[in-house]
């Protein structure tokens, strides 16, 4: 009941977050139940069942990531609610539990609905087309779906609980966030990119095609070699980790020299947000780059096209985009004080909008570079 009362005070973005969490939970639950159904229909092929279960991990990770980013943003965005709860005597653990419980409830609702659908469909409604996927005709051990479905709310809830920030500060006086990047945070991604590029070059050298042991990628993506795959993975990870520092440098570049107010506000704002924006933008860019590289393999051959990878890609992209939206909303709340100070000084709102546009263009350029490089390297490595 408490959650329902909280939900009554929700605004559009909160409801969207709740619905996205529930929907993502439902889709992940569907993947898990499908893996269970196939395993029941065909108990001999053990390793295939394991692979199918492993394919459920990326969507599960995407849901957990989205839940963590959303939980991280909640105290900042709903400061008055947290202040009210704290003043009423709720401690840090209780607030953490409330936020995590809310996420787990959303995921649990979605998973429960999927289970209901699964049980209904098992009564021979869908016909023989889905019989294999649902494990029709085989007795369903009660513990299996419950254990699998408990995994979704549990993972998302734990991720959310771990991400809730707690600082003992006065209400309305948030603790300052660190903004810069340490030397290791810069050296590691640069090293990864260099290593990945070297591996990729080795894989693509003339005559490398004669290497005997190609890796067959799943979902009809063709083949690649160990060096190309490893090089691409290192490069992609390095570029993702480098996104934040690159955004910071782009901001410095905008405000270089003796900048106009527009360049100054846009650049310094981007530099200050680089650390917080880097991670969700990097995840979204990486997911987009992977989908864009692989989409032609699904579209090119209708026979091999499978709807499940598309759903999985859509889910991961949706969660990554949702995480970016939530983080942007959080940053917008954090910047409210600075914006008010600027308006107080008589800054024209046009200038503030211009700064946001300039900042977005600069960030978009950075993401085009990192995402484009990731996609190009992936395309080069595939055969």
């Amino acid at each position, binding site marked *: 009941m408490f959650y329902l009362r909280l939900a009554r005070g929700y605004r559009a973005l909160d409801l969207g977050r709740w619905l996205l969490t529930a929907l993502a939970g439902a889709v992940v639950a569907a993947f898990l139940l499908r893996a269970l159904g196939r395993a029941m229909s065909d108990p001999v092929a053990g390793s295939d069942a394991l692979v199918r279960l492993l394919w459920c991990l990326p969507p599960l990770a995407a849901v957990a990531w989205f839940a963590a980013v959303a939980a991280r943003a909640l105290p900042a965005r709903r400061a008055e609610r947290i202040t009210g709860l704290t003043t009423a005597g709720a401690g840090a653990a209780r607030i953490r539990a409330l936020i995590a419980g809310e996420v787990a409830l959303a995921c649990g609702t979605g998973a429960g609905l999927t289970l209901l659908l699964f049980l209904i469909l098992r009564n021979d409604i869908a016909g023989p087309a889905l019989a294999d996927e649902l494990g029709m005709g085989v007795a369903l051990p009660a513990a299996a779906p419950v254990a699998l479905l408990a995994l979704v709310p549990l993972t998302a809830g734990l991720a959310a609980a771990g991400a809730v920030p707690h600082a003992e500060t006065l209400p309305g006086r948030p603790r300052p966030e660190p903004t810069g990047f340490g030397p290791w945070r810069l050296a590691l991604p640069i090293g990864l990119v260099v290593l990945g590029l070297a591996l990729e070059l080795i894989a693509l050298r003339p005559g490398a095609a004669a290497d005997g042991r190609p890796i067959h990628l799943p979902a009809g993506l063709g083949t690649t070699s160990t060096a190309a795959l490893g090089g691409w993975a290192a490069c992609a990870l390095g570029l993702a980790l480098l996104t934040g520092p690159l955004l910071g440098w782009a901001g410095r570049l905008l405000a270089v*020299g*003796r900048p106009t107010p527009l360049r100054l506000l846009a650049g310094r704002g981007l530099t200050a947000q680089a650390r917080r924006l880097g991670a969700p933008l990097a995840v979204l860019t990486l997911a987009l780059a992977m989908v864009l590289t692989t989409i032609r393999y699904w579209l090119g051959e209708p026979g091999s096209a499978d709807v499940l990878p598309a759903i999985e890609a859509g889910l991961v992209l949706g969660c990554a985009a949702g995480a970016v939206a939530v983080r942007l909303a959080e940053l917008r709340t954090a910047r409210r004080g600075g914006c008010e100070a600027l308006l*107080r000084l008589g*800054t024209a709102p046009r200038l503030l909008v211009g700064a946001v546009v300039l900042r977005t263009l600069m960030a978009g350029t950075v993401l085009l570079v990192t995402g484009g490089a990731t996609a190009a390297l992936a395309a080069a490595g595939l055969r």
Partner: protein
Amino acid sequence: MAAAPPDNDVLWARGIVKSHHGTPALRGVSLGVREGEVLAVTGPRGSGKSTLLGCLSALLPVDEGEVWFNSAPVHTLGRAGRERLRRDRFGFVGSEPHLVPELTARENVALPLLLAGAGGKAAHTAADEWLERLDIGELAKVRPDRLLQSQRQRIAVARALAPLPPVVFADDPTAPLHRETADQVLRILTSAARSHQLTLVLATHDPELVRYADRAVALVDGRLTGPVAPVPRAPAAPGTAGTTAVPAAGH
């Protein structure tokens, strides 16, 4: 509406009424601020000091009444006109520093000058000078979140003074400060106002701080009470101004 504001008043308000979403804040305030004076507006919390300063400094539109600045109407200005007025003519120090968090101390102070169209070099030089004057010259390259509250408030004072605006509004500027820093900030504000012939409107809940002002008015529950300067209906000669003012010392 027929009466023109007196010539020697840089700011002149008549019958200002202002409420915040139905909660009345000002219920008919009339006030004249003379050029180059330090005027204190005292009153307890919630008496409407901040709202009065907001209306006078063209941040808030008034619900009723008139506000004039240098014989030009402020209450008829649209949003853009009030923005321009705030940017080009007014300086403001609030009870919180309200700095732009991602800018360094120097950039924060230079910002009003840059917004008003000054060159980058001139703006940064002026910013450095004012930071030096407020004893925080060595913090020019530091961002506000790494500074103490008292240092941040001094940056806010430097930001308000750096463009040398004709009128500086200070809304409880010493609220976040300890006594010794509060004294320093007020001394700097008043001495800068006197040496550059700026007009300073100082709102404070602390009756002791009235000693820094030439004249004080008290605000209670959205109305001026006590030592109120009656609003002159006709241009008054500078010599007669003293009769309308209650010296702060006698308060």
